[in-house]
């Protein structure tokens, strides 16, 4: 069951969000990026933000444990995200980014070892999505990636005269309870580009991996901009004189040279070919084998912003036959 918002009430609807807490939405600065909103007029919903949604849930660098006098101590977190009971609301995320959260949930939430820091953020950040009417980029291929209508609190779908708001969570329900109800199954956008899903194991030793990886410069943009890349490094940061510091995690990339380095100096995935193949197969094969769902959500960022314009979708579609 969803709700209906009149077009003339749209601005007030956003102002309500802004007053309820910290509102974060896409803003055009040097590029389109998620940012704290001062004036709701600044919000730009056309196009997909440069950086994906994941950074609000898995920050680039974060403290896992405190180290005090040579001992590791757990972080004390406030029950609510902000002391003054203000909520953090992210508005304007696209369904590909939101599905990225479902993927992260599988490893950081519904897992044998749930991650406390991630769980805390997931529970305290409200996600309000916006449905794409047309694909924001020619590189989008989400309609072939079976996106699911899940992992958001609210999602806006623009119709001719009004907005339909899909409600998934109890928190979301409370935010829109004053609006009239309606039942509507909103359509997903149709992208021109599509990934031809297939079993890639028979092509593991194929030469086409080499063609693509030869152009790769290991700039790691693909992993930074991916809404589902989560690999991280753990390290200690300490002041030697006080023995105080932190045990931290930092987002890492499988395209980095030292990613598979072991003590003694041996690197297991030592060539770009191996690194590139590992990333692509992790996205469309390894995760699928384990969770019966592709890790790629089809946002197309890794292709659009690739330094060498490597297009793994094209390679899979055209060359692996």
């Amino acid at each position: 069951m969803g709700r209906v918002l009149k077009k003339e009430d749209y601005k007030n609807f956003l102002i309500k969000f802004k007053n309820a807490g910290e509102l974060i939405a896409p803003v055009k600065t040097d590029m389109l990026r998620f940012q704290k909103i001062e004036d709701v007029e600044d919000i730009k919903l056309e196009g997909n933000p440069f950086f994906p949604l994941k950074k609000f849930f898995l920050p680039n660098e974060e403290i896992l444990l405190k180290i005090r006098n040579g001992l590791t101590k757990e972080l004390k977190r406030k029950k609510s995200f902000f002391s003054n009971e203000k909520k953090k609301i992210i508005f304007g995320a696209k369904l590909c980014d939101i599905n990225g959260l479902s993927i992260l949930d599988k490893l950081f939430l519904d897992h044998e070892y749930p991650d406390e820091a991630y769980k805390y953020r997931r529970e305290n950040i409200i996600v309000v999505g916006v449905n794409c009417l047309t694909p924001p980029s020619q590189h989008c291929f989400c309609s072939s990636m079976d996106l699911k209508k899940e992992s958001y609190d609210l999602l806006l779908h623009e119709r001719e005269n009004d907005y339909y708001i899909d409600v998934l969570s109890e928190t979301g329900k409370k935010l829109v309870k004053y609006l009239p109800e309606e039942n509507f199954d909103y359509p997903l956008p149709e992208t021109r580009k599509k990934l031809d899903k297939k079993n890639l194991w028979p092509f593991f030793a194929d030469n086409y991996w080499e063609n693509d990886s030869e152009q790769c410069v290991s700039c790691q943009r693909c992993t930074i901009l991916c809404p589902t890349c989560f690999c991280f490094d753990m390290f200690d940061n300490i002041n030697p004189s006080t023995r105080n510091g932190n045990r931290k995690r930092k987002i890492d990339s499988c395209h980095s040279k030292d990613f598979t380095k072991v003590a003694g100096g041996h690197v297991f995935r030592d060539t770009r070919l191996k690194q590139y193949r590992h990333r692509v197969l992790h996205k469309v094969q390894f995760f699928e084998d384990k969770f019966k769902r592709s890790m790629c959500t089809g946002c197309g960022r890794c292709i659009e912003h690739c330094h060498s314009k490597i297009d793994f979708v094209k390679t899979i579609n055209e060359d692996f036959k």
Partner: protein
Amino acid sequence: MKSIYQAKRYKIKDIQRQSNNNIMLRIKTKINPSPGQFVEVSIPGIGESPISTASYNKKILDLNVQVVGNVTEALAKMRIGQKIHLRGPYGTSYPLEQLKGENLILVAGGCGVAPLRAVIEYLKERRLDYKEIHLFFGFRSPKDILFKEEMKEWKSLYHLNLSVDKAPEENPFNCPVGFVTQILEEADISADNSSILLCGPPVMMDKSITILENKGFSTDKMWISLERHMKCSTGKCGHCMVNGKYLCIDGPVFRYDKVKGIDE
């Protein structure tokens, strides 16, 4: 909710120097890992390191540490009575319960002997449940032999085949000089009702498996322990992932036919 990365502090009871660059830390703890599992050892401020466990079912946990990196170097400088942080145990173990009534062949090289020491301690308590037990352990030189005291005991209880790659000086164990794979090739072992437990450098394991396959052993009777730098050990960080398998939670011990031919 508790953080999965939080470690507990334990006291070092004893430190035994095993060889030039190997020490064994004996730690008083209630952590009771199965043979083949590993723990994350850490010194706050320096970092964490995954170390395989080398003992079974005792109040004391033995960790054989080879000095190769920052954390292990710092561990080697620790003294008795100092405290280290541990979390775990993590990963899969050798399925010893399942292998009851079989002949066991343990093949290891260098510090790969350490996890198999846990297997041997497990077997010692249940010796009658298993048939013949063959040990094939290879080291670089007589100086590098680990668990020297125990080797004497193992020699009397099991069929111990100890070898060294080279013996430039003295050879107190009088063990044959040559790779452990050569000894394995010449050994009189039968594939009938036998299982293999392997741990060691990748080259040694590859060669041993080829030799054993030629001798008629089937790959579903081999259990190997793979190694990577596990950083989170909870199936997330991705550093130990090989072909979609997280070695920290899906491994480190695999039945060989499940991982045969996996490439990076």
